[in-house]
């Protein structure tokens, strides 16, 4: 082994960036080696391939392309799977470190809780991104092999946006993890939050829209609060340039905001990334790592 491979002991003060990156690297290595990563990657790829094959078979190999059930199926799968993956990965992270005493050890080092949190966030985020890239890459390959002529940019958009969604959900997961005392509680809470975001909020909003005769403007505004709806609308907007496929509310959004929808959706997802992470940092700074 070459001598240069060993880090030169730093006499300078540790920088926040290098601390963060070191923790991120460790987190990524741990994640990639862990069973959850392998399991999630395989499951996501398998389900994605299933969706791709079923939809491509449905179109009868006619080679016609366009926005249809294939893209819809992939969006649907991402909506179910990515939040579950990111929420549980985030929730398990800090809580299990705390349970094992690892958190106290890390905090004993000259590093701040914020650096630790950011490091974990980036490391887990990179692992999730790799998992999504593998899964969606396999889907794109399968669709191409079936002779489907979908525009590749829609798959790229889907990949990019699903990474953004994963980062938002990971942020929420880390917040849960920072607050929870035990891993089991954190993971349980994460699954509850997943259920709330994926099913309960939409079903409640549907019922509310019908019962209260919500105006479509309000319906759209409320939908913007749910990161899953934002991800879905953004994917459609990117693929099709018009949200009119989503009926009156979508038509309203397209006509009212047009190209400004990109920053609007972006702001909503960014808020879901930044806000929980900030709260998690506050919680970690205030609480004893034990």
């Amino acid at each position: 082994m070459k001598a240069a491979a060993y880090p030169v002991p730093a006499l300078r003060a540790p920088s926040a960036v290098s601390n963060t990156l070191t923790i991120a690297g460790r987190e990524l290595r741990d994640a990639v080696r862990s069973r959850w990563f392998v399991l999630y990657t395989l499951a996501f790829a398998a389900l994605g391939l299933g969706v791709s094959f079923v939809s491509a078979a449905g179109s009868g190999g006619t080679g016609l392309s366009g926005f249809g059930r294939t893209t819809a199926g992939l969006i649907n799968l991402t909506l179910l799977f990515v939040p579950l993956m990111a929420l549980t990965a985030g929730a398990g992270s800090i809580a299990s470190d705390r349970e094992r005493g690892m958190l106290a050890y890390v905090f004993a080092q000259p590093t701040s809780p914020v650096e630790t949190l950011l490091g974990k966030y980036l490391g887990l985020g990179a692992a999730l991104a790799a998992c999504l890239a593998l899964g969606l890459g396999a889907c794109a390959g399968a669709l191409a092999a079936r002779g489907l002529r979908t525009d590749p940019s829609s798959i790229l958009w889907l990949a990019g946006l699903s990474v953004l969604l994963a980062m938002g959900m990971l942020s929420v997961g880390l917040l849960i993890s920072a607050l929870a005392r035990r891993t089991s509680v954190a993971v349980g809470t994460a699954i509850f939050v997943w259920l709330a975001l994926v099913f309960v909020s939409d079903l409640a909003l549907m019922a509310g829209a019908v019962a209260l005769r919500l105006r479509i403007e309000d319906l759209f505004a409320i939908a913007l609060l749910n990161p899953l709806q934002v991800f879905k609308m953004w994917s459609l907007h990117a693929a099709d340039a018009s949200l009119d496929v989503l009926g009156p509310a979508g038509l309203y959004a397209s006509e009212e905001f047009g190209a400004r929808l990109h920053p609007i959706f972006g702001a909503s997802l960014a808020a879901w990334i930044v806000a929980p992470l900030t709260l998690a940092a506050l919680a970690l700074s205030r609480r004893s790592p034990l």
Partner: protein
Amino acid sequence: MNRVAIILTALGAMGMGEPGAHPAPQHEEPAAIETTAQGVALGAIGRRIAAASPGDVVEIGEGVYRERIRIDRPVTLIARGRVVIDGGGSGDIVEIAAPDVTVRGFIIRNTGADLDGENAAIRALAPRATIENNVLDDVLFGVDLRQSPDSRVAGNRIGGKRLDVARRGDGLRLWRSDRAVVEDNVIHDGRDAILWYSKDVVVRRNVGRNCRYGLHLMFSDGVAITDNEFTDNSVGVYLMYSAGVEVAGNRLIRNRGPSGYGLGLKETDRFAVRDNLIVGNRAGIYVDGSPFTPDRPGEFTGNTLAHNDVGVVFLPSARGNVFTANNFIDNVEQVSVAGRGALDANRFWDGEVGNFWSDYTGYDQNGDGVGDFVHESYTLFENLLDREPALRLFLFSPAQQAVEFVGRAIPAVRPEPKFCDEVPLMRPQPLPACAVVEGGGGGLGLTGAALLAAGAGVIACAAPRRSRPGRILKGATP
């Protein structure tokens, strides 16, 4: 019919104008110049026409002519080279006032923009006009046939003014012009291409783009609409109050305006819709009160409806339509009934022939190409959508599946089947001949490979290194 009378009166008032109602040209030429009977000064082309005898061929040489032309005798007017007739941004440009006139090969541009005056590039007021191979650009109305039966409009390129759609005129309009032939034209950026009270017209191989209605029939019977392409209009083809219409071999693609139909039928009778390719519209086919009388069922055969938001939309009033051997491929919603209502009075199979449904879940054990189970469509979510359109916002979300699961699991809330096909096809019918599939499939494979490589790269960076516990934090080393 009351409606007819009202529309007639309205159009009369809008200026089914006498030819004399032209605005005077802006540039009066010096005195002692030849004039027409109406006392309008003649330009260079006008003088050639005035000098011609009936039946003459008048050839016009290259140049830019700024004049209004009235053709008052049966002559053939041909452009030699690049002949531009410029309207100077006001009024009409060419008026055909005699039968058997031919206008061929001109570039005619820059009409007025006065909708009340219906400023047109070429207006024919007499039978048997032939308008061929002209390029009309920046025109309010393009070709306007008024009581000009047996005319031919062929090979023209008609480009409207780039105005807000409410301020545009019709690229092509036929008014009481029976047996006209409209073929091989390209019409873009106009309002409508419209047929009023014109029987037995043939419309074939035309292209309509970025208009309001690609083609619109009003009270026009016996029209054959074949092999046209209508792309990116508000509505592709809209048939209203007409009978005996054939719509075959057309490409109706991405018509997504406020109504956004590939093909709309309103109170139309004795129609056949065959072998069309209908892709990516908001609604592939929209059926409103058609067929209007029970003479003959509405016939929809061999069409491919793919990737539309809704394949076929029925208003509850629609009855007596028969769909056979069509492909319903990957439409977000294959068939919908606007408002409440069932499709009992319409059929999706006839004898042994059904349709291909990309969402058919049955199988074909005896291998005869026909699914062994009836294709029935009843999803609770689509049922909700038909009643509450605002809920479309929740399409593609897991909540949609939750609702559909409830619909399947609990018979009490399961809606009645919307329609059924007793003999669904297992394989799609061959695509209509008009379906030329655009290329560009290779990119998807590359994208997939790139994504796989990116994922593998991240893992490769992380995984193979031996863990070195002492290196958790660089700063920790003293």
